[in-house]
């Protein structure tokens, strides 16, 4: 043990001292041989040296502490250099079965960022014993589940209102009045919209195997389902008033709706198949399809087309609740678009000329 201390010390003197450690701390550390792990933890950035001198592969030991109480939960050993955080989480799950890998949040230091699953141990290791802090991220659901729940709900709920399930509307009134064709058209458009979303979630989107806390699922489902019920109630009401400008208004907005739906679909297809050519990797660019030419004007045309669809739907049905829903999702999507736009600007500044985030020339 003593020999190893000496070699480590000399190694350390050769290396740069990390900003945290000072000369005096180093001296003290060398003097106190309390425990080997303490000494190594206090060290600055060392080149990772083999734990056992004659072994060919480096094995790491990862000590997992609770982020709040700093108590040790368990030690994951025999972790190779090439393993990732994901492997560590799975080994941790085997050791402590109640924490599934998706619930586990590991940080290098308390309050630091959570380490992504794809990072390798090699990139974060400073010594052969690593300390990670564990936080329970709570009950998680996969993004696919969230999307499926979010989109199936409105599809079914709107149909319930359209088919006039008893007790929603006054029975005498409902049976008496003939329904204006725009009501049927609205149902058709609404169903197309959500069917397209569902099919894209299942077949087009390459949703990462990421997870999200359960309460996000509850929040988004409540929002979508609630607003769909509110909208569907008015559109399918016996006392529904058709649009003021009659068929002209309806046909123009219906055509617009279909154009925006098609546009949204093609953009999603392009986003799902990014071109990985060199420095242009993962930056979506327009191709021969005219719908994708929106990429010349904005960085997030999928949001643009979606807002277009909903505005057409509002104009087509001339219903205020639909307008309120459109306004709310526009606000939410503009926030997301701004974030993405900033990321693109940072990464691909040479390609981003004269572009807005979501609405051409305005936002």
């Amino acid at each position, binding site marked *: 043990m003593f020999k190893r201390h000496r070699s480590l010390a000399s190694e350390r003197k050769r290396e740069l001292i990390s900003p945290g450690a000072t000369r005096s701390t180093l001296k003290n550390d060398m003097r106190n041989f309390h425990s080997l792990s303490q000494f190594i933890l206090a060290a600055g950035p060392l080149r990772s040296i083999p734990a056992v001198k004659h072994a060919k592969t480096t094995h790491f030991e990862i000590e997992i502490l609770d982020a709040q109480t700093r108590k040790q939960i368990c030690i994951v050993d025999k972790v190779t250099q090439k393993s990732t955080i994901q492997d560590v989480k799975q080994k941790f799950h085997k050791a402590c079965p109640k924490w599934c890998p998706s619930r586990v949040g590991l940080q290098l230091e308390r309050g630091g960022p959570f380490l992504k699953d794809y990072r390798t141990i090699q990139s974060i290791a400073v010594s052969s014993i690593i300390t990670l802090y564990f936080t329970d991220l709570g009950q998680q659901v996969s993004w696919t589940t969230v999307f499926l729940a979010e989109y199936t709900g409105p599809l079914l709920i709107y149909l319930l209102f359209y088919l006039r399930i008893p007790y929603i509307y006054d029975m005498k009134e409902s049976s008496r009045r003939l329904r204006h064709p725009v009501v049927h058209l609205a149902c058709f458009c609404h169903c197309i919209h959500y069917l397209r979303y569902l099919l894209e979630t299942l077949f087009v989107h390459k949703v990462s195997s990421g997870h999200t806390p359960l309460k996000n699922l509850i929040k988004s489902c409540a929002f979508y389902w609630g607003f769909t019920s509110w909208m569907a109630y*008015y*559109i399918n009401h016996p*006392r*529904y*008033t058709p649009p*003021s400008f009659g068929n002209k208004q309806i046909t123009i907005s219906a055509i617009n709706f279909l154009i925006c739906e098609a546009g949204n679909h093609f953009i999603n297809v392009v986003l799902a198949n990014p071109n990985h050519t060199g420095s242009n990797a993962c930056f979506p660019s327009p191709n021969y399809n005219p719908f994708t030419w929106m990429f010349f004007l904005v960085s997030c045309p999928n949001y643009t087309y979606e807002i277009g669809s909903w505005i057409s739907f509002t104009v087509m049905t001339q*219903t205020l*609740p639909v307008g309120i829903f459109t306004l709310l999702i526009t606000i939410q999507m503009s926030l997301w678009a701004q974030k993405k736009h900033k990321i693109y600007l940072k990464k691909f500044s040479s390609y981003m000329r004269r572009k807005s985030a979501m609405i051409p020339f305005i936002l």
Partner: protein
Amino acid sequence: MAAAAATASTKGNGGGGGRAGAGEASGSRKKKGPGPLATAYLVIYNVVMTAGWLVIAVGLVRAYLAKGSYHSLYYSIEKPLKFFQTGALLEILHCAIGIVPSSVVLTSFQVMSRVFLIWAVTHSVKEVQSEDSVLLFVVAWTITEIIRYSFYTFSLLNHLPYLIKWARYTLFIVLYPMGVSGELLTVYAALPFVRQAGLYSISLPNKYNFSFDYYTFLILMMISYIPIFPQLYFHMIHQRRKVLSHTEEHKKFE
């Protein structure tokens, strides 16, 4: 609820000791605090608000002495009440620009519920203004606000008398239920008049296919007090234990 929410206000205006939501009486040492100009403005704001609510309190007392009974006192303090309660909207602005370390959402919620009661219920439904329940919540609000604004003023000037801190964290035990009862009774009294006049309600059919029933809205609002009131109340009791016992510990060490 509006009364309690204001008493329970999470982080309070400006720096200073003991605050509700953040929970620690020592929180002021960690955070930065507003700059000198912002502090001066906040002190002026809080002093003006304290003075305003004192005017309302004095007005109530004078009206009571003049009339000899406590009925229909609302009319004598109607204008200052509307002015100073609406002035509390500035607090949302303070949170938004960051000179007060409170959450914008929570403060908006508190202030808007107060303003709603003043304008959309008491002002709009004139028949309700002579009810006794109005006096109940006005008194609760007046006492709460005088203590709260003076608490903030002294905190900003770093000279908080223990009496004010004690008052803020103790009187709510009585004032909160009093204010909530006043508010609920007032809304309940307003219901038949809203139904009769069809106040603020739109019905189908109309050009924009929208309907709103103010009567149902008020009922839903009253029901929402049921989950929110106990949460805020017990939160305040918890804060009280923390803040007042913390101060006692400090006193022991001095």
